[in-house]
């Protein structure tokens, strides 16, 4: 077993109203960042887990997202990095 640091991004699914993201988009526009067309605000979760290899760590975290970390009705997730520690 090795240990891995896995980072996950979870964001509101496309098409689902994200009022927080919209408020931030508006604020960015008022600062002059006119190129911003969409902002979605979610969560960034970092886990340290034991697994046989990076693929197994990835699979474990995917299962965690399916069952708890993300809400399949409203959120999308993306495993950003899997790094040995």
């Amino acid at each position: 077993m090795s240990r891995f640091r896995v980072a996950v991004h979870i964001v509101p699914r496309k098409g689902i109203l994200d009022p927080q993201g919209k408020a931030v988009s508006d604020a960015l526009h008022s600062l002059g960042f006119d190129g911003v067309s969409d902002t979605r605000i979610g969560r960034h979760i970092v886990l340290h887990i034991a697994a046989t290899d990076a693929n197994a760590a990835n699979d474990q975290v995917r299962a965690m997202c399916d069952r708890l970390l993300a809400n399949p009705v409203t959120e999308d997730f993306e495993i950003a990095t899997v790094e040995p520690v």
Partner: protein
Amino acid sequence: MKFGIVTFPGSNCDYDSYHAVTDVLGLPAVYLWHKSTDLEGVDVVVLPGGFSYGDYLRAGAIARFSPIMREVAAHARAGGPVLGICNGFQIACEAGLLPGALLRNSGLKFVGDTVRVRVENADTMFSARCEVGDVLRIPVAHGDGRYTADDETLDRLEGEGRVVFRYVNAAGERDTTSNPNGSMRDIAGIISAEGNVLGIMPHPERAMEDLVGSSDGRRIFESLLARVSA
């Protein structure tokens, strides 16, 4: 008829629910601790409002793993009534007892107000003492009450008469001002396919006596009394 009111860490409407059932309706009720695995023979389970587990991760996401929830799910599967109010609605969705999810209010603010909901289906165990079109005045108090589901689910809920309550204005009509949280299709309360689980964002247990501004919430409890034999 005996009510069981689940207390999660962070529940704060468990006492209101207990008061509603015992002091107002004169019926027996017990608190069910979230770590318990015994429903103590109750006929109706109330998942009360509050902020179970501090709303960590998502509202209701952690509460559904409490030991008592396994028993609540079994009770629901066997056709037992479950009344999920506010955080209880969020927990019921997270637990898969009801479809959809409750997201941050579209206005981003916590909303504490008395709202009006219209009865859309009076042929349920939670609304049998109402008529379709009746408008009930019931308080809301939530930050995450925006009911959200995909179009297919929403169409199914409407087609099957499972949207029981909708936010409306004083005239009983849907408009842009009557929906306090941006819920899709102005949904305030839905029932499960089998009709025995109600999720509702407004708090009927806080509208039980004229002294507090409205007793319209009694109609929901009285519907249970009329429909559920115990």
